């Protein structure tokens, strides 16, 4: 079937199998591989994107459900060569190791900070409880969120 989706501001069209997920549409058909496929069951958050502004796991949404709607991916956070402050904070805090989970975390943190610019630690943990990382032990991810919050005008880190 044919789906038409507005991805990071541009309308894109692709031919997909009716059972294809939004993640398969983004990666296999549109070449947007920043959203990672790490579980396909909505347990790891590596494929986090926004669908009409709502944070979703792209693996749990059908491509057909996204037809005619607005999708924003991790690629949409970068302006030219310039990383989003949250992405910069992940690098500066040392929160990136293998990096496979990082785009999903970045999207989840941008989403959190857009709703709560100055989250306390329990709030951060709750917001990121759906994202798995096997490398970092999460310590520096917590650092990165605090650093990003301060860069974006919340409290000091």
């Amino acid at each position: 079937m044919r789906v038409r989706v507005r991805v990071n501001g541009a309308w894109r069209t692709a031919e997909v199998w009716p059972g294809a997920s939004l993640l398969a549409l983004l990666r296999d058909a549109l070449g947007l591989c920043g959203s990672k496929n790490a579980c396909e069951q909505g347990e790891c958050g590596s494929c986090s994107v926004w669908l009409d502004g709502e944070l979703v796991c792209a693996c749990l949404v059908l491509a057909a459900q996204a037809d005619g709607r607005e999708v924003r991916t991790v690629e949409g956070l970068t302006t030219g060569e310039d990383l989003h402050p949250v992405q910069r904070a992940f690098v500066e805090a040392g929160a990136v190791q293998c990096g496979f989970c990082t785009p999903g975390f970045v999207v989840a943190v941008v989403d959190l900070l857009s709703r709560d610019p100055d989250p306390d630690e329990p709030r951060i943990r709750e917001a990121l409880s759906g994202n798995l990382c096997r490398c970092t032990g999460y310590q520096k991810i917590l650092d990165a969120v605090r650093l990003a919050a301060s860069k974006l005008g919340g409290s000091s880190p």
Partner: protein
Amino acid sequence: MPRIIKQRVEFEGRVEERNVVIEGDDLPVWPAGERFQVIGTPVTRVDGAQRAGGTARYTADLYPAGVLHGAILRSPHPHARIRALRTSRAEQAPGVRLVLSHRNTDAIPWYNGMSRIFDTELRYVGDEVALVVADDAAAARDALDLIEVEYEPLPHVIDPLEAIRPGAPQVHPQGNVLGGAPERYARGDVEQGFLAADAIVELDVTTPDVLHHSMETHGSVAWWEGDTLVIWDSTQHIFGVRRQVAAALRIPLDRVRVLSPFMGGGFGGKNNAGKHTVLAALASRRLGRPVRIVFTRAEESQAAGKRPRSVQRIRVGARSDGTLVAIDYWGVSSIGAYRAIGTPLAGPATELYACPNVRAETLNVFTHTGPAAAFRAPGYVEGTCALECAIEALADQLEIDPLELRLRNYAEADQVLGRPYSSKFLREAYAMGARAIGWERRALTPRSPVRDGPPRRGLGMATQLWGGSGSAPAYAEVRLNPDGTAEVRIGTQDIGTGTKTALTQIAAEVLTLPVGKVTLSLGDTDFPYSPLSAGSQTLASCGPAVRMAADEARRHLIDAAASLLEVAPEDVRLEGGRLFVAGVPERGLAIAELTGQIGNFTIAGRGFRGPNPDGVTIRTWGAQFAEVEVDPETGEVSVLRIVACHDVGRVINPLQYQSQIHGGVIQGLGMALREEHVTDPETGAVLDLGFDAYAVPRITGIPEIVALAVDKPDPIANNLGVKGVGEPPIIPTPAAIANAVANALGVRVTSFPITPAKVRAELGRRA
């Protein structure tokens, strides 16, 4: 002149002899107190922008033009023979291009000849039966159901203790014990030793099957360019994949190129080529198009390797002053259906403490379960659970502080190989860690079990020893551009540890360039050879070669500058990217001014990894301390704080050092409290096929971690004085947590993971 020397090299708990080519003299070790500009500073990831920006291309992200997708049919039986296999319906399904099975594929030996790429005898639920290649992944997966297989189920055995009983179903014709017999080690006389003991502790310890679950699953993408095979592989060893695939396809090595520029985690699970790697290459050759095979998370759970479960019994005896007089160790490692090397379970028990009488016996047992793989300090994590829990139980029995007991039995030399250590700063690690956790707060372990009342706190600790020396061979090349930037090429891989950043720092240091002016490329077998990224050996193997390559380029820069400046090379200095006459700083020029005059890559250097010093054992050392709170009513364990302090030689990048500690500690915490890969003993089926059923730690339950480093260079190990830190932090974590739980409640749970149910059961048993 190149020469070949014989080296005894430790790797993942095993010592092997190896011929190593040495091309010349190594550089002297940078001594303690050497002043650096870049080394020892917290440089952030040189490829961080790509990884955080989502633009890094991992193997799983590769979709070359015309790519086809492969899906693997796997055995539903733990042990069965294929009687008949029909693929015609699958072949006719829409989008399907090819079905490969034993019927149309050469009998390529696999698992060291124990099996083949498509075996007709299947030995675990998940063993490969057939491959479907189709236009898209969904079509390939759908067609798997259309392959008709008649299986003849055969008797199976899942439990390793059942597998070693007489009459048990056989996994391989040679029997269920790897090598046909236990591995044995002995020194002194253990029975005499126990006669001299005032206190004896005996513990039964079990550890679970644990899955690596790197976030990027196993995967390969292969295509042919003429008669050359190109493979992108999510691997810890590009050169190993090249060797294995070339042998499987019987093609020359120069016709295979393997790439892995970005890799999404391995932890030992990606040390070798997988069957899927060979299958992608075979299918691509038949179809003339790229073929991509990437595991689903369910396949990763069934067929991608695991830390094998262990069953251990340890007896330790000591005099009343705490002096160890005997250690008797017995361990079983359940290595699954296929594994060529045993698990070094007995490493800690035989080497960590000074003890004249030690006996160890290890059995590596085949079962009809998924194959075991190396997993971050294989054997040593399990073996440390047994040894370090027994040591702390012994300390409690003797009413000696557990740290004091350890110090009284400090091993000054390697008693197994009978030679000194290159360096050992474990006392320093103990002292720094004890201070940071506040070890003096540790209360005596209750004499009788605490069954009710409010949550109670406890402190526990454990020690690690591990290899991580690295070794030859490893090579690197450095070359300079006319604009004064430098390029480094090395055929290692960055599996997520930060190899690329640390090696870039070393080259930048030598060339006195900022990190941003050095570009390091890796993950390509067209680059100089580097070893497997495992055994905590990457930095200590590759780093010294990078230093030497940069040093040669530096000498060429100095020689060239000397000609231009019309002075002797000895009188030229290189500092801050500027070459000048000693004592006359204004008489000089920037590197870029020099290279701009002499062209592309005319200044270059090649470096090799020198041999390890003879006659010494190189080890990493470390101590970890855990503070826990346990609710005796529910049995719930909360880890409040972990302090880790390791002696891994000189620290090149403190930020990445901390990251390795944090990650290793949390993997150890998962194994201590929650992670368990479960195989149904009746059906052989894996019951945890995803993150819904397998408890990878989440951000909600993690404690504070204090990562400290002794940070003293090893004086002789290699020219940088470095050792590896990848594996050390996981090793003592489960034991330290278990010891803290015991200290809190006065009962000891030695069956990992320490679940609330087990804590309650242990309290009940002691009622």
